[in-house]
């Protein structure tokens, strides 16, 4: 099968890591997956194609903004591929009722906003796929989409020196509440017992200048002074090819998650990248959520209550946590490999 992903290709965010894995693994399985576009040196591991006509299916990978689906880009795709051969992967849960989680994170500013989104969706395809194990809307097909890449696993023998005790890799987009109310108080409590800490990603130093105009001040909320007080280093994001090696520079990596994604149980690349790295992956999910993805051993990786104690425990009992991570990897290999993901995608499109 030949599948074309039409997506907003950005080197340091979104689903780009997953797309690279689909391209690579599909080839091993006798399929062809490419990203709509022309070859681009910023994306060395991706196959690009603009020959839309040669593909059997088009999958629009749609995140929380849609300006990239411009009137210049989309008509060409729609005219080349009939509707029944198009699907939407709704990565950010836009195909849901409008919701505000904890009066903080939300998918739509207004019902008008939602109706415009859904008008776009109706135009693109009937088939909606969501990377969740539990879709909320009828007609949505669950397709976890993101997966574990055993080939990317960084071995402890080849790993870089551990420069950081704690790393958090991810942009400050709807994460500040979780970080400021759970993670930072824990770090504050045990700061003298910790070495270097680093947050890598956009907007940990300051919100973007356009945040106010976008009505998204809360999404980018940050207190750089508090981070400085806690001696937390802030670094810009790295390209997707460097995410797992970078994570491997931390003894512990903490995965934070925006509330909306937790509410809809949406998976992301980060769920799996953090396990591919040579690090102790701790995820800010409740134990049941962690188990649903990572298997029974995953409960031990949940950073949910008693955060400070858990961080210290992980640092002091490295070998125990390495064993837990090892168990989790075995589970992911069995249940969440990209081989399985490609099969699921092919099935979803053929159904």
């Amino acid at each position, binding site marked *: 099968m030949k599948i074309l992903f039409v997506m907003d290709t950005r080197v340091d965010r979104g689903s780009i890591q997953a797309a690279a894995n689909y391209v690579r693994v599909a080839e091993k399985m006798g399929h062809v997956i490419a990203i709509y576009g022309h070859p681009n040196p910023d994306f060395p591991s991706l196959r690009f194609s603009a020959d839309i006509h040669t593909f059997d299916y088009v999958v629009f990978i749609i995140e929380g903004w849609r300006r990239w689906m411009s009137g*210049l880009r989309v008509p*060409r795709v729609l005219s080349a591929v009939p509707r029944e051969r198009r699907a939407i992967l709704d990565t950010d849960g836009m195909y849901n009722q409008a919701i505000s989680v904890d009066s903080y994170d939300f998918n739509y500013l207004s019902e008008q906003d939602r109706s415009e989104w859904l*008008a776009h969706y109706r135009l693109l395809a009937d088939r909606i796929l969501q990377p969740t194990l539990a879709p909320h809307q009828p007609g949505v097909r669950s397709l976890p989409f993101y997966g574990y890449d055993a080939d990317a696993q960084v071995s402890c023998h080849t790993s870089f020196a551990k420069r950081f005790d704690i790393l958090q890799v991810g942009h400050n987009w709807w994460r500040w509440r979780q970080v400021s109310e759970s993670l930072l108080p824990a770090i504050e409590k045990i700061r003298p017992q910790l070495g270097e800490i680093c947050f890598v990603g956009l907007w940990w130093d300051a919100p973007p*200048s356009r945040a106010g105009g976008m009505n998204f001040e809360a999404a980018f909320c940050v207190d750089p002074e508090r981070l400085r007080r806690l001696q937390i280093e802030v670094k810009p994001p790295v390209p997707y090819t460097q995410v797992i090696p970078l994570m491997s520079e931390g003894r512990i990596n903490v995965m934070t998650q925006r509330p909306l994604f937790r509410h809809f149980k949406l998976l992301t690349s980060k769920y799996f990248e953090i396990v591919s790295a040579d690090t102790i992956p701790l995820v800010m999910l409740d134990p049941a959520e962690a188990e649903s993805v990572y298997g029974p051993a995953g409960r031990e990786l949940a950073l949910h209550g008693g955060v400070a104690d858990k961080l210290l425990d992980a640092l002091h009992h490295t070998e125990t946590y390495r064993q837990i991570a090892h168990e989790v990897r075995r589970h992911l290999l069995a249940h969440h490999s990209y081989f399985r993901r490609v099969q699921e995608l092919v099935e979803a499109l053929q159904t």
Partner: protein
Amino acid sequence: MNLLLVAKLDRYARAINTITQYVRAGKDLGHNVSVFGEWRSEFSWLPHSLEIGAFDFAVFVIYETDDFPELPHLARLLDDIPRERRVIVDCCGRYNDTVQVEHDSNHFQKLDGHHGWEWIEGLRAVSDNILQPTLRPLRGDVRPFRFHGYDPTAVARSYSSAGEAASAWSGATNGVKPCGVAYLGSNWQRWTQMRRFLEAIEPIRDKLGTIRLAGWGWDQRPDWASELGVSGVDVDTTLLGRLRVETTPGVTFDNAISFMSQAHFSPIFHRPLFNYLCFVTNRTFETFCADTIPLLILPDQLIESIYGPEARLLAPHEDLAWKLDDIMRHPEMYWDVVLKTRRHLAQHHSYRKRFQELVTILES
């Protein structure tokens, strides 16, 4: 003919004046021209329509990607108007291989997320009939169509002679003008030329009175330009301060002529890309409607072919300060050129003529 114009309207930018003129000229010539979309009070003088089936042709006026309507509307347009009845006016030379001139380019992937190939293939997906407001398209499959034009009825003040104009301009009969130099336009890819202009007039700064720049980006480099690493929207506030240059926000299109009329001089710059592509803009023509002496800081080829041979005298070339000084000493001679150029523009570049050219293209 029933003509549907598809464009994003902005009272401060893009082709709002040109579109207004097409609606008027079309009506005068017995055609029906509407803008695609729902009627909006802010553009109350423009007829709007969503009745796609009622139109013979759709003319897409494209500057940016968001000049295309939102997708559901666009899909209806493409479904209901056959391809051969769609035309694109490519106002920024997007339908070319990528061209880089100084900091300027026809494709800014950092800003709109689209590479050059996608502009070419995307525009071709909408229509085979692509027009550019240029004297000489680079591609063989583009037709030259200047699109913008001159409206003689919009001239701020008509004069029966150059002597009368010079007298009014000098303040003898019409009061003193509040500005020496007024420039209207955003600081998008203009700074290199503006800097050169300001440095050149520095020796005669005290003779000029107020210098005023209207448009966004003249007071400071926008934050987004710094964040994205986009050049060509630079500014040197020290230079502006030293020359006592006033900067103000842009003015709406219906106040453009009166704004320029406040000044003795109004320079016409085109962005470097447009100079290279020999493109014209609304301001190329509109400045001659103002009660001012236009300074043509444009390529010679464009000056001659648009404004006629007389207009060369309005081009300062390398000695701007001398030219301004000379105009101030001999205003009648220069106003004679301005008045002749207005007549030339009225004869060759009126919107009535433009509209007829468009009809010929559509019917061919």
